[in-house]
């Protein structure tokens, strides 16, 4: 535990140092990045130790705050969530040094690094806090630090808009969490997690719903996701990687923790989670398919993955309430494994998108193309990340989803409600996976294949060494976590045990062992075959002509131009047209009626459907309501003091 504290202190000190060195860009970068990396190494050690030994560590320091206590607990569940935090923030810091170099002189990099390290420290606090006040402190610190990072390019109006939406969502969520902790701690003198008592049935349901909304606003499942596709693309790419990879998982972590205090669970909670998860993964991935910006695609894909995790949690709870234990154990294990895997591959993908943004100056599909010739390493690494995100073996995305599938199939020969849940989960996962494959084919294809659509894309350059190092590291971790998934079994079962109860931990260890070994063996076999084919490529494909360079997408035209190639919109059009009722694209389609058609134009724009058709009207309702009371607010000091006097008098008279 001393190392956790050390890591925490390193982060805060390096943040302070970076802030002090704001003038000197180079030094500020060094202070921030070295601090983040050393803190990650210091923090990884106790986290791994706790996961391997299975014993929790605690630490209590005096902290004179009402109802608060500075008590940290590092149990296997916390450690399981903390490991991705340390891995991803450490690698993102390395990546960030190269990525932010271009901003030196134009942006206060010291502030950016300070916010980054404070964000990491706040996430550590959230994952280890054993007291509600401390937890909320970490939670709000996390929101504040990431708010500053979303505002990094504050000269862009969409960044400011994103930051405002993010702030509003964060504030609403925090209010709900305060209500959650107030309800949970109503019967105890302190707000320590250990002193929370199980509330009554009605109160438990209220706590569940509040926690679902409060934590959901951070996790970003549909319909509480509106801030996510705005804020994640607005932040610098290494921060997007951290936000998408680990920060949104704090919502999942919080939900799991709160569920732990609400036993016994009710079946409808599971159904709520299952349906929300299914909707999130389906609608999220559909929106991903319709986006025109690489980072926005990745943000929507995060919504999809949060949906998958939520769906697995719901499946597990349904399993528990219907006493279908193997199903519950598998679903919980799948949820946690996917938390881990998603953080690795989403970090990799956001870093790849950042490399594109850095190299070509834009992440708009219609301005990119042909980057695989200009940035071959980034293209390969992005492909690896995309394969993991589409849950293709041998990468890591497959293992977690496979456990959830397996759980869903286990449910089929159980009682009717469990079977229904299993069918629903399996179907949503399968459809989401198919659309995800299309979305990532489109994203990767339009970015890296074909010919450059603009001069900017034609002049793109490969990412710097440190950026490539981080991406290689994450890609190898993705591959390793896919190939060697049985090694994750012990930590996984310990985390499941700490989060959901001992029997599920042991159950997940038993149930998941065989499938993970099969996955691993199959992946290794696949890899061996690929290696063999590569070694024997001469004898397998004897007609090895000298490669000749011709334009891509020639299509038989005599003088093809890059404008003739398949665009991102046209690639997705058959699918997006089919789902138009959900997507509500606004676009203009050319209608060719004559034999010699003239100029035609085509445009398609994905809308933020939930934002436009639910949140904006709701917000304007609230504002109208607020305007009704604007007569209270007119700026006369005397009247304001009178309000205070009158309310004080009212309170006094009420008590008399």
């Amino acid at each position, binding site marked *: 535990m001393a190392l956790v504290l050390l890591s925490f202190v390193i982060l805060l000190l390096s943040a302070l140092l970076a802030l002090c060195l704001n003038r000197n860009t180079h030094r500020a970068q060094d202070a921030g990045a070295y601090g983040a990396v050393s803190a990650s190494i210091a923090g990884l050690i106790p986290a791994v130790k706790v996961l391997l030994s299975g014993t929790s560590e605690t630490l209590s320091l005096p902290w004179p705050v009402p109802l608060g206590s500075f008590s940290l607990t590092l149990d296997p569940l916390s450690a399981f969530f903390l490991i991705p935090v340390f891995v991803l923030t450490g690698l993102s810091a390395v990546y960030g040094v190269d990525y932010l170099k271009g901003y030196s002189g134009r942006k206060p990099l010291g502030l950016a690094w300070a916010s980054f390290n404070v964000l990491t420290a706040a996430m550590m606090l959230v994952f280890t806090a054993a007291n509600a006040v401390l937890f909320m402190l970490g939670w709000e610190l996390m929101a504040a630090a990431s708010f500053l990072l979303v505002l990094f390019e504050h000269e862009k109006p969409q960044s400011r808009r994103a930051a405002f939406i993010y702030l509003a969502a964060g504030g609403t969520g925090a209010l709900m969490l305060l209500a959650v902790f107030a309800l949970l701690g109503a019967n105890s003198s302190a707000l320590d997690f250990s002193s929370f008592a199980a509330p009554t049935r009605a109160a438990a349901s209220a706590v569940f719903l509040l926690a679902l909304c409060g934590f959901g606003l951070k996790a970003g499942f549909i319909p509480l996701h509106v801030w996510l596709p705005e804020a994640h693309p607005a932040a610098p790419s290494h921060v997007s990687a951290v936000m998408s990879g680990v920060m949104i998982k704090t919502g999942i972590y919080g939900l799991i923790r709160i569920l732990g205090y609400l036993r016994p669970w009710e079946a409808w909670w599971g159904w709520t989670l299952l349906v929300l998860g299914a909707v999130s993964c389906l609608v999220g991935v559909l929106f991903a398919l319709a986006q025109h910006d690489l980072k926005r695609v990745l943000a929507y894909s995060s919504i999809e993955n949060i949906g998958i995790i939520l769906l697995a949690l719901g499946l597990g709870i349904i399993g528990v309430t219907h006493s279908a234990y193997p199903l519950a154990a598998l679903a919980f294990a799948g949820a946690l494994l996917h938390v881990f895997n998603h953080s690795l591959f989403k970090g990799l993908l956001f870093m790849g998108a950042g490399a594109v943004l850095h190299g070509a100056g834009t992440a708009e599909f219609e301005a990119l193309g042909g980057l695989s010739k200009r940035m071959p390493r980034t293209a390969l690494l992005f492909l690896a990340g995309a394969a993991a995100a589409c849950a293709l073996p041998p990468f890591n995305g497959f293992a977690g989803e496979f456990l959830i599938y397996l759980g869903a199939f286990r449910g089929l020969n159980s009682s009717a409600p469990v079977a229904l849940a299993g069918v629903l989960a399996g179907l949503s996962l399968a459809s989401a996976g198919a659309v995800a494959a299309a979305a990532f084919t489109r994203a990767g294809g339009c970015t890296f294949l074909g010919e450059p659509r603009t001069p900017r894309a034609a002049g793109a350059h490969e990412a710097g060494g440190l950026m490539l190092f981080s991406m290689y590291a994450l890609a190898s971790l993705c591959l390793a976590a896919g190939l060697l998934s049985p090694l994750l079994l012990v930590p996984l079962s310990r985390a499941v045990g700490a989060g959901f109860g001992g029997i599920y931990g042991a159950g997940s260890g038993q149930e998941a062992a065989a499938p993970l070994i099969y996955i691993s063996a199959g992946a290794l076999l696949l890899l061996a075959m690929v290696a063999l084919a590569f070694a024997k490529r001469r004898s397998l494909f004897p007609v090895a002509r000298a490669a000749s360079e011709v334009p891509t997408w020639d299509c038989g035209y005599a003088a093809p131009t890059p404008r003739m190639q398949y665009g991102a919109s046209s690639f997705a059009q058959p699918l997006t047209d089919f789902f138009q009722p959900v997507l509500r694209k606004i676009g203009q389609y050319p209608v060719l009626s004559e034999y010699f058609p003239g100029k035609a134009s085509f445009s398609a724009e994905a809308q933020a459907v939930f934002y436009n058709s639910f949140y904006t009207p709701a917000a304007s309702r609230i*504002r*109208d309501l607020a*305007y009704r009371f*604007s007569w209270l*607010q*007119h*700026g*006369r*000091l*005397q*009247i304001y*003091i*009178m309000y205070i*006097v009158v309310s004080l008098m009212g309170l*006094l*008279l009420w008590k*008399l």
Partner: protein
Amino acid sequence: MHTFAELIIVFIILLDLALAVTGGLSSCIKLVALQGVVAGLLPLLAGSGAPHPRAVVFALVIITLKGVVFPSLLARARDRSGARKDVEPLISYPASIMLCLGAFIASSWMGSRLPLPETNIAWIVPASLATIFTGFLLITTRSKAITQVLGYLVIENGIYIFGLALFVEQPMMVELAILLDVFVAVFVMGIAIFHISREFDHIDTAELSELNDWRRGEYGK
């Protein structure tokens, strides 16, 4: 002895009523100073027997501050700001005195209802509440910034007397803490008033509402 203290209480109530109807700014400052001095004398007369030397020292400090330092600071702020000589009430003087009388009646009722320990000076709780309400009245119905400072001072007098009612022997600890706050507040307000009058050529707080940020129509409504 107590009759003398009760006389002082009556005097304080009369001063409250006088404050409600006084139009001149300088007479207001003088009235508030007088009230502070009288209230400062009260603990010396309230206890039985000769007062403790410590109490005498505290009373002297309080009387100096309220009787000399604050009035001179306020008078200087008034002269510097070059404001008009009257308090510019937002409601008429008859209305002010009616409100003040109403506040006194309400405080008499409240004084009988409040669960307080027995006091040996009659009317001390209603008088203190009435003084607090008069302070609020000055703050809310006078437009000058100086009268708001005066209002806070009157409230402070009321709180002081109230503290006296609760802890006859040791009101000093409470009083000292409040006095420190008020001292800082008067200082800050004196500076602020000076700056406001320099920037805006007046110290009418109503004009400051021009600075507010809530305008109907600016948000696309």
